């Protein structure tokens, strides 16, 4: 059994050298690729300029990146803002630039509030644009609060919930830096980053804007209706049996409080959604709730407008316009207005930016006031009726999806194809 000491020493030396060399190579790879924008390594085309990890690591990436950007305007909201509003768009007014998109995929109002506090703790912006989505104000039947903010996410922000300086941030930044430099996840993401840059196409993040990789997203389907259908199924499932979550309105008020305290101008924006999503909201029985939600938002905006601060505009981009009734089509998905039934494209985002900057077209986007809100709500109802008369197949498809989900809930485990939908398709062809 005995081994001479020299053999053992050789094993230890070889092992130690191999371990150090391997770790050094991995760290170097991660530093060069900088997949999470932690090290602020210069971004070079063809090597590390694109950041595909934006799809999964935005909480960490934006926490660091936004402080470096020191924006005048910051965009808050969910993935709809994250994907739809291009922070580097030419449509932004010169006085509002630089713009940073601090919205997160799945970002609820509480997450938006915490990230705003984080930025204010370092360099307060002069304008906040908050995108609002009806679905995020619904509370699931299990009453569980859904927020992106967990202990790790909280720990990396400059301030805590009570707006005090967060002493644990240094530790969390060190942990983030360690993970970004050494972890296996980072190694895999670095390899993905370099591969994506060599190929020259992937998702990317510029000024916080998630440049959604439409090519990859859409290449999976031969039919845009499948893409829309998938999103409709998701909404039908997640929003089922919910009630209005009053706490969300409070979180919006926290944001407005923080802005008032730091004299930051605010614009509230109800994001545009495709007609499909409005029909899903109606199918789930939330139409009145949806209308009340707008009224409540206007009341809150009015409350803050009347207390000495600048008036808070509330823009509503929902409705059945030429933009939102666009037929799902692969060709227009990349160049048109919607990626799927809830995510609008930066092209439509530019229309939104023009409208709120005062250069928009009539008929898309309404600045809500107590004088026009009821007319606006009634107008959307009549638009909806007209849409249903002209697009009967759209509702049939949604009804089929809803009925199938309900059947599965009752224990029917095999899907029955939609006979009516097939007839629609045949007659269309």
């Amino acid at each position, binding site marked *: 059994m005995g081994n001479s000491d020299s053999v053992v020493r050789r094993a230890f030396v*070889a092992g130690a050298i191999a371990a150090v060399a391997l770790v050094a190579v991995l760290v170097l790879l991660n530093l060069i690729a900088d997949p999470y924008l932690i090290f602020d390594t210069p971004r070079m085309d063809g090597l590390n300029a694109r950041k595909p990890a934006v799809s999964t690591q935005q909480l960490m990436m934006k926490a660091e990146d936004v402080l470096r950007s020191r924006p005048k305007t910051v965009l808050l909201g969910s993935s709809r803002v994250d994907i739809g509003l291009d922070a580097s768009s030419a449509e932004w007014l010169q006085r509002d630039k630089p713009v940073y998109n601090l919205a997160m995929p799945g970002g609820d109002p509480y997450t938006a509030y915490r990230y705003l506090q984080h930025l204010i703790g370092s360099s307060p912006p002069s304008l906040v644009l908050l995108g609002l989505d009806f679905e995020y104000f619904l509370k699931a039947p299990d009453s569980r609060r859904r927020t992106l903010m967990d202990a790790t996410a909280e720990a990396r922000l400059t301030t805590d919930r009570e707006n005090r300086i967060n002493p644990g941030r240094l530790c969390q930044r060190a942990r983030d830096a360690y993970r970004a430099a050494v972890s296996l996840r980072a190694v895999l993401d670095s390899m993905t980053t370099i591969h994506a840059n060599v190929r020259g196409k992937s998702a990317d993040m510029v000024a916080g804007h998630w440049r959604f990789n439409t090519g990859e997203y859409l290449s999976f389907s031969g039919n845009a209706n499948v893409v829309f259908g998938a999103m409709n*199924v998701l909404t039908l499932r997640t929003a089922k049996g919910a009630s209005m979550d009053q706490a969300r309105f409070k979180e919006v008020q926290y944001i407005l409080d923080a802005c008032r305290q730091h004299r930051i101008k605010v614009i509230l924006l109800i994001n545009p959604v495709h007609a499909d999503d409005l029909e899903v909201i109606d199918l789930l029985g939330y139409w009145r709730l949806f209308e009340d939600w707008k009224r409540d938002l206007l009341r809150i905006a009015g409350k803050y407008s009347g207390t000495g601060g600048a008036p808070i505009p509330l823009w509503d981009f929902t409705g059945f316009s030429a933009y939102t009734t666009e037929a799902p089509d692969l060709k227009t998905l990349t160049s048109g207005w919607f990626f799927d039934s809830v995510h609008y494209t930066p092209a439509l985002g530019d229309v939104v930016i023009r409208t709120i900057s005062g250069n928009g077209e009539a008929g898309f986007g309404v600045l809500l006031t107590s004088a026009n809100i009821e007319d606006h709500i009634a107008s959307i109802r009549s638009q909806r009726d007209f849409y249903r008369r002209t697009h009967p197949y759209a509702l049939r498809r949604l009804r089929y999806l809803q009925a199938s989900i309900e059947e*599965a809930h009752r224990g029917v485990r095999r899907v029955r194809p939609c006979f009516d939908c097939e007839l629609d398709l045949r007659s269309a062809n």
Partner: protein
Amino acid sequence: MSFNSYEFVFVFLPVSVAGFWYLRDRTGESAAILWLVLASLVFYVMADARGIIAVLPMLVATYALARLILSPAPALHRLKGAVLAVGVVLNVGFLCYFKYKNFLFEDTQDQQLSIVLPLGISFLTFQNIAFLADVASGQIRSLKASEYVLFLLFFPKVVAGPIAHYNDVIPQFRSARGLNSEHLIVGIFLFSIGLFKKTVIADQLVPLVDAEFNRPPWLSERPHTFISAWVGALAYTFQLYFDFSGYSDMALGVARMLGIKLPVNFNSPLRSGSIVEFWNRWHISLTSFLTDYIYTPLLIRITRFRVRHGMSVLRGRYSPVAAVFSQIAVPTMATMLISGIWHGVGWQFVIWGALHGLYLTINQVWKLVRPKSWPDGAGYEHVMRPVGVALTFGAVVIGLVFFRAPSVDVALGVLAGMAGLNGVLPYDLQLLRGLGFPLSWADVQVWQPLTPVICVVALTFVVLVLPNSLELVKRYEPALGFSSEESPYPLLEKAASGRLKSSSRSNAVMMSVSERLAMVVRNGLMIGRMLGIVIALLFAFGLAAVTEQSGFIYGQF
């Protein structure tokens, strides 16, 4: 603090190992043992500070009872059976209190009274019972308090075993002589490969498992479908496999760095040709424990009862049904049901235990009837061994579906999916296809990605064919009794205790491919530069994959 944490790897482990060898060299065995007692206490407190308060009274009581049994006083000597019984009842009661009280309080929603399970409570209890039995049977004649505490709380094995016998471990502490570089490098190899298995394989499978077994409420209605159900079930099988295999390797490795060889606890169980063999390869020390302290005593009592009352007993292939039922089915089912309930509270664990009881019963009955239909032993092995491996693998996976599922309903749903009752492709894809639009191959890939399928297929190859860590360093006796002697699994035969006579021969047939591979790798893994480089790779990747603190699955039992 867990084996797969930075503080353990970079601080606790080097300090405790260096301190032990330093004291061993400079001051002798007593100070070194005290150092390890101290290290084990620190490890326990750092992992579970509240747990030590709960565990200490059990230690004190068990030690006191052991001293009573060892007492030379004749009166006490006569009472040693009763003292042993008290010790067993105390320990089992203690375990039941912690394991099942939570369940009762959960029912009453009384969170204030909720009790946290102390670290390694189950293994400490089993260890104590085995220890008291060894004392009562005269195998342990002298006892020191420090050695007893070390035996019980020895940090390499306190979380999840292996369950060792006092006389297998303690004499090694006394006989260790000076810093042995072979111990150190074999220990580091085992620790590194264990870390790799845990962090690079087991932990990475969690999302695949959760996708099938831990669905959010809004996805609960979505039926489990064929491919995803199989991926989920296999992913959990491999998660548990590599989690426990990784832990066992790390435990052996840490102990070996201290010059201690622990018993083998995990030995490529999914290569087994029968369910009996599976249990002699999976959690070997627990199987031995259950066999020694539940199965065998029960079988002896049943046999005695039947003989005393003139009832029929087992007679090989001519055994009457009543004897088969009472001497095979009853003790086997009872043992496995207890094992099931020990693993967790809930009907799914009872079903898991009952299933394995049934598997084992069928396996043993088959052993009785098999010679009638197939007298040629060698031919039988060649043809039936692969069939046995496939059947055993399938049976284990089905059992683990119950073991992992949060409820019986979910388990039945996953099994229905595995049986193909809900279609092959994911439900959402079927739903979208129902709209009438054509779906492309790329659509299928989005809802049913190929990577997880490739992953579980590759891992199936790894567990069935590749040599295990012990085989790779067999020449250095990585575990107690696991060396390059004639029979590769001496403990296996010991555990089987006559129930598994064909194990060595069948191993020889099945092991041929992996043994050959093992020999090739082993030749490259002699202590030298190559072993150092392999360790470095395993260690660096294992450590890089440590991101979140994730405990060992068996540590929760």
